[in-house]
């Protein structure tokens, strides 16, 4: 059996014991699984045609390749359409409250480093009501994978503009157009010094799977923004990128170690601008040596940030793939290390603790 390193003085803890007992019953942890093993008996209740179905299928079919036992995986979500996700996954899960999933997942991951912790959230959940928790989870680098389904609208409350909606968006709550400037979730995450930031499209199974795989394998907080079509309240929001006619023109695929060349016949490329940022250029107008070669592992986040700023709010020049992937110690590893260090002086003795400080005896 594997002992969960909880920093408790006397192993096994009730947690260890419970896990060991269940393994006696079920045999060793089953890690060779199929996609269907991750399905539950619950009826999936998203609107027909919703992008969430595609993402659910992609996740279910790629999870077996990670070799994680179902009981070691926990999916925590907030509130919103995307946050129903845990009900459809045969793992442990908590459908929590609006915006708070990263906070709940932080406590779970910090106290149970043996688990694979995932957060499923949306643009309203993660960036509006839960914005604070998101940025703090990212800066702490708790080991968890955050899937942010961005459909640029509030779906579950029936169609109000969201923090990623474009300026001027006409919705039920903004009949004359919205006034708020939208967040770029990738820029926000990089600004919070996230160690892993990626972006993928719901309908691009291959690209999505590749980003998810790297995110899942990353130690630390991974944020994956998934463009997800809400066919009821914001249909076609990502059509510019999805349409085979326009998609290649505006999508910048990110491949680590590859030059940033894109568009039909590689007509466009990314070069440095005069102010330390990046800009799009025509490939035949620049020297090949000027074209930026993508490096997701750069310690300094300025490059990944500049990359995220190439896109406009109408999605022209949208990089897709892994923006940033750097190694930093995880929060729970450092926490466990402090516990370990404290115990080097000897495990805590309750009687000694209670009798701490100046004491006196009454006879």
């Amino acid at each position, binding site marked *: 059996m594997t002992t969960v390193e909880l*920093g*408790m*003085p006397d192993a096994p*803890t*009730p*947690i260890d014991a*419970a*896990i060991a*007992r*269940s*393994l006696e*019953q*079920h045999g060793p942890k089953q890690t060779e699984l199929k996609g269907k093993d991750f399905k*539950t008996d*619950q009826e999936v209740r998203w609107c027909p045609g919703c992008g969430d179905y595609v993402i659910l299928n992609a996740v279910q079919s790629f999870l077996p390749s990670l070799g994680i*036992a179902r*009981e*070691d995986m*926990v999916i925590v979500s907030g509130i919103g359409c995307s946050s129903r996700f*845990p*009900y459809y996954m*045969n793992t*442990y*899960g*908590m*459908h*929590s*409250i609006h915006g*708070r999933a990263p*906070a709940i*997942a*932080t*406590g*779970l991951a*910090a*106290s*149970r480093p043996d*688990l694979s912790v995932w957060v499923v959230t949306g643009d309203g959940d993660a960036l509006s009501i839960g914005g*604070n*928790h998101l940025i*703090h989870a990212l800066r702490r680098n708790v080991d968890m994978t955050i899937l942010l389904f961005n459909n640029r609208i509030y779906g579950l409350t029936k169609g109000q503009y969201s923090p990623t909606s474009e300026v001027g968006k006409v919705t039920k709550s903004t009949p004359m157009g919205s006034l708020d400037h939208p967040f770029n979730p990738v820029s926000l995450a990089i600004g919070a010094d996230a160690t892993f930031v990626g972006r993928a499209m719901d309908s691009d199974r291959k690209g999505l799977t590749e980003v998810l795989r790297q995110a899942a394998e990353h130690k630390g907080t991974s944020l994956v923004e998934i463009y997800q079509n809400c066919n009821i309240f914001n249909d076609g929001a990502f059509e510019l990128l999805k349409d085979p006619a326009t998609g290649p023109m505006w999508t910048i695929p990110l491949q680590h170690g590859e030059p940033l060349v894109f568009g039909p016949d590689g007509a466009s490329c990314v070069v440095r601008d005069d102010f330390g940022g990046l800009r799009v250029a025509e490939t035949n107008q620049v020297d090949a040596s000027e074209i930026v070669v993508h490096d997701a592992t750069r310690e300094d986040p300025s490059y990944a940030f500049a990359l995220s700023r190439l896109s406009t709010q109408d999605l022209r020049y949208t990089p897709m793939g892994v923006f940033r992937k750097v190694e930093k110690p995880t929060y729970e590893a450092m*926490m466990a290390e*402090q*516990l370990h*260090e*404290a*115990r080097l*002086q000897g*495990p*805590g003795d*309750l*009687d000694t*603790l*209670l009798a*701490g*400080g*100046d*004491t*006196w*005896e009454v006879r």
Partner: protein
Amino acid sequence: MTGTNPTVAPSGSNGAPVPGSAPGGLVKSVVELDRVVIRLAGDSGDGMQLTGNRFTSETASFGNDLKTLPNFPAEIRAPTGTLPGVSSFQLQFADHDVMTPGDAPDVLVAMNPAALKANLAELPGGGLLIVDSDEFTPRNLAKVGYATSPLEDGSLEGWQTVSVPLTSMTTDALKDSGLGKKEAERSKNMFTLGLLSWMYHRPTEGTVRFLERQFRRKPEIAAANIAAFRAGYNYGETTEAFAVSYEIKPAPMKPGRYRNISGNQALALGLVAAGQRSGLPLFLGAYPITPASDILHELSRHKAFGVRTFQAEDEIAGIGAALGASFGGALGVTTTSGPGVALKAETIGLAVMTELPLVIVDVQRGGPSTGLPTKTEQSDLLQAMFGRNGEAPVPVIAPRSPGDCFDAAVEAARIALAYRTPVMLLSDGYLANGAEPWAIPDAASLPDLAPAVGFATEPNGEDGEFLPYLRDPETLARAWAIPGTAGMQHRIGGLEKADRTGNISYDPANHDFMTRTRQAKIDGIAASIPPTDVDDPDGDARVAVIGWGSTYGPIGAACRRIRGSGRKVAQIHLRHINPFPADLGEVLARYDRVICPEMNLGQLALLLRAKYLVDVQSHTQVRGLPFRAAELAAVIQDAIDTVNPAAVNGAVQ
């Protein structure tokens, strides 16, 4: 009154002054007292809290019983020498058990004119007043609106005033220390402590050790403080200003080992103990807030016990992380004060719905809104009871004294674990910062919480499936399976649960059933708690006083006075407020009158009246300070004499 005021002239209640000799040929008397209340008052930067805490430690280790009342402003450093900047520390110590820090001081030490002005009205006539004459400068006097110096204009004639140049004597004592004048002046609190230590025959080794430890990286500061402390002591011994010193014999206490402990400290240790006794790792998610932060500080020092402390980005994340940790099998705890509870309300509701153990500590302070951050109040009771959307019952318990915070924390954890529920633990500012001697318990004698944990490891359904909402028939606690347990994967959340399966359910009958079941589970906790604790020595009192939380001391002291006057009164003090002890209604019905003193506008009284249809007489006060025993005694006496005029046999002393 059971004690006597110490006086400068040799007199006392417990015997004639005993002459003693002091160096320099002075003959000094020793007067024996049974109790003393001292208040130290100064500027926020004068170190009054530290001085008070040190005097408390000396007094505790000497063996007196004691209670303390720190009282300080919310500003870290209000403008020097002003009234808002006054910080004070009061303690009562005695040769018998004491229940409160004392209604009014017998001795007031005022380090500057502001401290004098803010506190003098509470020093009874004839009381001993010690002032630092160096600070009574025209500038300082003007700051607080004194036109003339009270030291010179005769306005202090009603008190026994001893004017001592504490500051200049401190700098004189430290003139060879190498410290500058300003730096040397900062040791005047230790000079004062030395003087008081001499006056009351306090042991001094503890303070010397403390100073050495505290300033181990600045040995010259440690040396200066120790020198000032000794100089103050020696000054007392040699000066003619003080002709007497006082002796207060140790109080009889149950045999055992004791330490001095504050409420926040005891609460933190209780949580560590609960973790150890349940075998679960303790996880604290907290955001700094007065007056609860010390619990976070204390717990963060106990990593060797597997305690994880997480300082969150906000109150909501603090409780969220704690609930996440509970989902993973930890003992999740969050600590805060009233404003924080307001922010945590939604997550408490989630914990009610997901039926996970969670301890929420609310160290109450004056409200509403930011209110009085450093002052005490009991006004979060109804928030704790009802401050959530929907029918969201939460058990509520409260400690009655600083040391009792330890037991209350263990009890909160017991209920949380055994019933899979969030539990609200209501401490308050007075308990949190107040201190008392505490009989150190034997760890092995503490409740064993491990059986309450009982993680589910095997499917419990007829078809071999796991039903997370299948309940224990006795406690109605649901099965708790933690991630990592094979074959038990399940999903929980804030949406209404179907009975047994925990799947999402919008079925009307199910919602009605689940709502009633959650309520029944909390109500059922009453079966696991002791019957109402009634303190009625003769068993035939017709008036009862009922309270909860930190009013225990003042109510107890008031009842003692009432009984001392030959009247009868029953004291009922509640540990469990939700649910109440099963017999409480029956108990209350026995009395002709029930009085309920609270530091709010009658929140417990409201609950009692609603639940038991008892005509509770509410007596309330929200001054940010604990009740005075004398004031409560007057209220109780009035009630007794109204109920039973024939039995009136003298005024309460």
